[in-house]
């Protein structure tokens, strides 16, 4: 039985061609999709049990991560998970129109996000709440999107964090252009070089835009890290519906490195992303990172995953929890005591409470907002529509409407 992991590319012209790998029905029924194992090429620094695995190549990239720093990463993950759960709950209570959970992807997001420098730029998809947090975006500023009061309001430039992009793949090309700009401005070449990172999912790899991003970035040596969070699912479709091969190998065809990292290992994500960014800063970009992780919750709050996947799979992934392994590592190695964990939990609860408070008090936008900032230089036609509509609304003032 071939699996995406075992399949290897035949040398050109040698041997028979292969066929697409898909799990057998039995495997699926047993919840044993091969995707729960990252394969031999998975870069991991912390095992699910919290054991530190040395890596000649990547240890130098996290040599500064002492216990204190690791506690920081732990705290980051706990906070964003708490905020994620709170948001999910608020959606259930009708306070948000929809929520897109990041549950399970905390390590991939915090690890990669913390690898960025302030001068770097990140282009997210729509699930990167953890990355937003590392970029200093106030979590509350994200929630307007999901309460449907705005389309995202943070200061994109100051935070180096582009607006969320919902149309799958679009941001990858935008990020490529941005990174080309960094290059054209002479901002790459040494350790102080700038770089860009863009986030997308396993499903997104099928989109033409992502391919074109690969082509452009390769041809222009753009300082761009393609950060693919392979959370095994594109809504109801498993990764086998998108590719025969593990996704990091896609880079092979374009001539830049592709690497698979344990997306539930915050340390490995930090190290690998730092390495990739370094390549970019020095002008050796782009680089593709596939963070092998799992979407622990539904696609969004409107989704019902019981229709397409079995809980066994979920159970298996629970054993690989990104937060638990850091807790285990810290606890066992004396990096943190119970007081620390309790305090982080308290902070997280406080964080969530503030979030809740903020959301419940979020004002609705005024009707005028429909018309505002469609253009940088106003359109007289649209101004007339605005005036007409506001006058029409005025007509109701005082009436029983």
């Amino acid at each position, binding site marked *: 039985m071939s699996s995406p992991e075992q399949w290897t590319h035949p040398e050109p012209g040698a041997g028979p061609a292969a066929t697409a790998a898909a799990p057998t029905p039995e495997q699926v029924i047993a919840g044993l999709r091969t995707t729960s194992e990252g394969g031999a090429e998975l870069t991991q620094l912390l095992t699910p049990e919290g054991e530190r695995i040395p890596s000649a190549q990547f240890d130098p990239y996290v040599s500064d991560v002492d216990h204190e720093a690791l506690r920081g990463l732990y705290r980051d993950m706990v906070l964003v998970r708490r905020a994620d759960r709170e948001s999910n709950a608020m959606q259930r209570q009708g306070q948000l*129109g*929809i929520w897109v959970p990041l549950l399970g992807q905390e390590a991939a997001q915090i690890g990669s996000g913390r690898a960025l420098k302030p001068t770097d730029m990140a282009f997210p998809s*729509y699930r990167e709440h953890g990355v937003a947090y590392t970029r200093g975006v106030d979590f509350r500023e994200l929630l*307007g*999107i*999901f*309460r*449907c*009061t*705005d*389309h995202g309001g943070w200061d994109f430039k100051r935070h180096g964090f582009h607006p969320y992009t*919902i*149309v*799958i*793949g679009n941001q990858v090309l935008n990020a490529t252009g941005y990174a080309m700009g960094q290059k054209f401005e002479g901002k790459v070449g040494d350790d102080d070089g700038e770089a860009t990172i863009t986030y997308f999912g396993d*499903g*997104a790899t*099928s*989109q*033409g*835009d992502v391919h074109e991003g690969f082509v452009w970035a390769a041809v222009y040596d753009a300082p761009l890290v393609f950060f693919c969070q392979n959370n095994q699912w*594109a*809504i*109801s*479709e498993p990764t086998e*519906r*998108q590719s025969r091969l593990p996704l990091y190998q896609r880079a092979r065809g374009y001539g830049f490195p592709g690497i698979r990292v344990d997306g539930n290992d915050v340390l490995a994500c930090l190290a690998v992303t730092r390495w990739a960014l370094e390549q970019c800063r020095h002008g050796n970009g782009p680089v593709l990172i596939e963070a092998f992780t799992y979407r622990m919750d539904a696609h969004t709050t*409107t*989704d*019902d995953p019981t*229709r*397409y996947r079995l809980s066994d799979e979920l159970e298996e992934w629970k054993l690989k929890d990104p937060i638990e392994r850091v807790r285990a590592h810290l606890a066992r190695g004396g990096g943190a005591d119970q007081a620390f964990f309790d305090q982080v939990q308290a902070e997280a609860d406080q964080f969530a409470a503030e979030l809740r408070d903020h959301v419940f008090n979020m004002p*609705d*936008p005024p*009707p005028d*907002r*429909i*018309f505002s900032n*469609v253009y940088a230089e106003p*359109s007289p*036609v*649209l101004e007339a*529509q605005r005036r007409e*509509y506001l006058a*029409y*609304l005025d*007509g*109701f003032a005082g009436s029983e*409407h």
Partner: protein
Amino acid sequence: MTATMKSTVDVSNSAVQNLTIGKAINLGLRTAMEADSKVIVLGEDVGKLGGVFRITDGLQKDFGEQRVLDTPLAESGIIGTAVGLAVRGFRPVCEIQFEGFIFPGFDQISSQLAKLHYRTQGKIKVPVVIRVPYGGGIGAVEHHSESPESLFAHVAGLKVVSCSNPVDAYWMIQQAITTDDPVLFFEPKRLYHSGNLKAPVDPSATPDPLFASRVVRTGTAATLVAYGPSVKVALDAATAAEEEGTSLEVIDLRTLSPLDLDPVFESVRRTGRLIAISEAPGESSLTSEIAARVQQECFYSLEAPVLRVTGFDTPYPPTKLEEDYLPDLDRVLHTVDRSLNW
């Protein structure tokens, strides 16, 4: 007279089912797939999940993975391969998950799907249906509430239709599938599961032709023309107006390209007034076309200019504001007043 479809149905007929629009499309798809083994369904999440709106629910289970395809995530791929499948003799029915995601497929639609028949002078037919849940009112995030149908009406070689009720939904999807031309099939997503709109669907009835508009309520003072989700708005407005003594005629456009405006012309010649309703921005749109043609055909009958009630010429706003953005009963009635007082 409120000419809903219900009146004509024999409810004692055991095959008759009381369906929502969503279920009616599902049944229509199922019926079409049973009738012709060349009919296949493809799109993102249409298989096991049954689509994010469950419109294809159960089809993969019953027809298998080669007739209901969960495709990779790319719309040009979905439409481009559907064109090839059609050339091979299949009758693909593509689902675009939300209208806002049809644009990556625009090129395959306009360059191949719309033109192959003309290019080959009929030697190649491309009977592809593209199902597009569209329109607002569901409180969604960006790109999930738009109305891009005018873009496709402008592209020659395509046919574009939209249904507004379960009976039409059931028949029109089947008619679209048997049509030898490519059809963009716009589905009013916010009404998919509306229990209020449930209606008895009788598979033994004789449907109206696909490319025909229909007067769904007769009236005398002014004519409202609408399609898809706006038909309900128009009918509600007519009901409200009647209470205040104003008799409005309502026409469900049903076919957006080619337009079947004869019933509209006929109506306007009687009422002298027309209000065209659509959720889409008005600029260079279907409602512009309706106005342009009606002012020409009914020049001497119009007592007031054709007026339009549409989405504004802005991107779809954050949906906390969509009630303001979307044409509603009040805006329609207000515009009727403007027309009557012109």
